């Protein structure tokens, strides 16, 4: 079983997230591996462990600081770390990112076939959940998204997904792109030995040229959208906080009625 997991470097949820020049501010201190990608790493490790053989690759696309995302994946136990780092990638939209990730996947797949690419259900900065679909289309592989259960047997992957109106079971032949939700598993914590080993483990760094991707096909130039304005919202004004001494419920009702909400 050979699996590649995509991991994104995103600002820590607890940090002061912001925009600079129309792009998400990404710093080394406040950045981390997208929390939802931990479920993708866990899914890959479990499949390989169950198969008793195989390898897991972690891949990130982003500036120099993004290496933190694959280092985190190494701490969790993946075998190989890949980092596409190229100034020309900056400002990519989902379609540009998908092109770059697909080129990296094809490079690994060309060395020896991969069975799966596993992604998180969303990157917690943009929360678009579009990349897995774009990647499957770009690779022309099977697409199985939002898996809350996943099994692989006889050259097929099968997932369950919980949508607002229905629970579905979907199957497709390998190789497949699978995105997984935080319902799928409980991600492990890194152990001391792996943390030490991850510090020294090699990270393969690729440029767009290494991947044969034309710089004009990725990055801000190829993006189909441009952020023209980003501004911090003012905090909510006129907030009221009461401590219940017996009539707070009544006060709340009066507030709702006065606001025309009840």
């Amino acid at each position, binding site marked *: 079983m050979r699996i590649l997991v995509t991991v994104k470097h995103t600002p820590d949820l607890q940090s002061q997230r912001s925009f600079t020049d129309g792009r998400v501010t990404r710093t080394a201190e406040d950045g981390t591996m997208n929390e939802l990608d931990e479920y993708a790493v866990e899914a890959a490790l479990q499949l390989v462990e169950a198969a008793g053989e195989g390898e897991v690759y972690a891949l990130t696309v982003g500036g120099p600081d993004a290496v933190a995302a694959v280092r985190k994946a190494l701490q969790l136990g993946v075998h190989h770390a890949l980092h596409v780092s190229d100034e020309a990638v900056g400002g990519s939209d989902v379609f540009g990112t998908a092109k770059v990730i697909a080129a990296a996947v094809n490079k690994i797949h060309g060395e020896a076939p991969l069975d799966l690419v596993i992604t998180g259900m969303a990157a917690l900065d943009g929360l678009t959940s579009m990349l897995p679909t774009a990647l499957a289309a770009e690779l022309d592989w099977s697409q199985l998204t939002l898996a809350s259960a996943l099994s692989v047997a006889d050259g097929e992957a099968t997932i369950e997904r919980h949508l607002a109106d229905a629970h579905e079971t979907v199957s497709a032949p390998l190789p497949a792109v699978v995105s997984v939700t935080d319902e799928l598993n409980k991600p492990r914590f890194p152990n001391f030995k792996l943390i030490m080993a991850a510090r020294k483990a090699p990270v393969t760094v690729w440029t767009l040229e290494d991947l044969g991707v034309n710089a004009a096909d990725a990055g801000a130039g190829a993006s189909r959208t441009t*952020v023209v304005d980003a501004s911090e919202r003012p905090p909510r004004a006129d907030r009221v906080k009461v401590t219940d001494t017996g009539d707070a*419920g009544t006060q709340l009702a009066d507030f709702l009625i006065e606001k025309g909400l009840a």
Partner: protein
Amino acid sequence: MTTVAVLIDHRDGAVTRPSLEALTLARSLGTPVAVWLGESPSADAAAQLGEYGATEVRVVDVADARLAASAAAALGAASDDADVIVVISTFVTKEIVTRLAMTTGAGVVVDAAGAEIVDGKVEALQTVFAATWNVRTRIDADKAIIGVRPNTTQATPADSAGAGTIIDVSVDLPETRERVVSVAPVEQSDGTPLAEAPVVVSGGRGTGGDYTLVSELADLLGGAVGASRDATDEGWISHEHMVGQTGTTVTPALYVACGISGAVHHRGGMQASGTIVAINMDPDAPIFEIADFGVVGSLFDVIPQTIERIKERRGA
């Protein structure tokens, strides 16, 4: 004039309210045409779409468009001539529009709170980072796709109605590798689904698993019941009720958080709500940082009194 195709969401043959909101938004961008996937709509449904401005109702009678690639092909066939496509942003439609954009070169903004045409280009508005930032994005590509969140546009009928003429569109669905093995419909609780509800009353760990009061308040306010992840993980209430970054994002006019601490994951899914009320025993709970009206107290004391008072004042 710009043609704006709107993918209509319908349940049991009826047009959902977010679809009317999307048509209202579409009118401000150009001339709306409705796209209806599935069996032909009733005359009433088509008339309603006309009332909200649809000049045409383009019907693609696909028996099964559960897979993103199939639905994208169907939507694409019905929106060939459209410069702008509007859908209601959900996990499912995000996949459909991603597929469509891969074949058409369209630029996409999802989870939008609105859109307008500026200098001939569509600009979409979003609130991001748990609603702490406003972002305006221009779609540079020739074709623009916008996923709008429910409750972000006030649905109003058009001043002059559209004809709502039904037009059948045929499409050859692509071969897909994926196979839907089974579909089990989710039992829908009465009333409006969470994402569309004008009022959401949510209960968290603080309910201790008893949703009686939360449900009663939700009913009284004409709203839906939400929950935190801890509550759904406990099995107190089903996953469909979960509000938050990995659950349902809601933007109701009123959000009432009962016994919910306000973890960033939860806030990410509700912080853009109109008015936020929090009831929590812990005066330091983070939810109070974003509550317009916060009550430090037990939900078991506060909610019954609120319900009683509302009933009393309504009766008066």
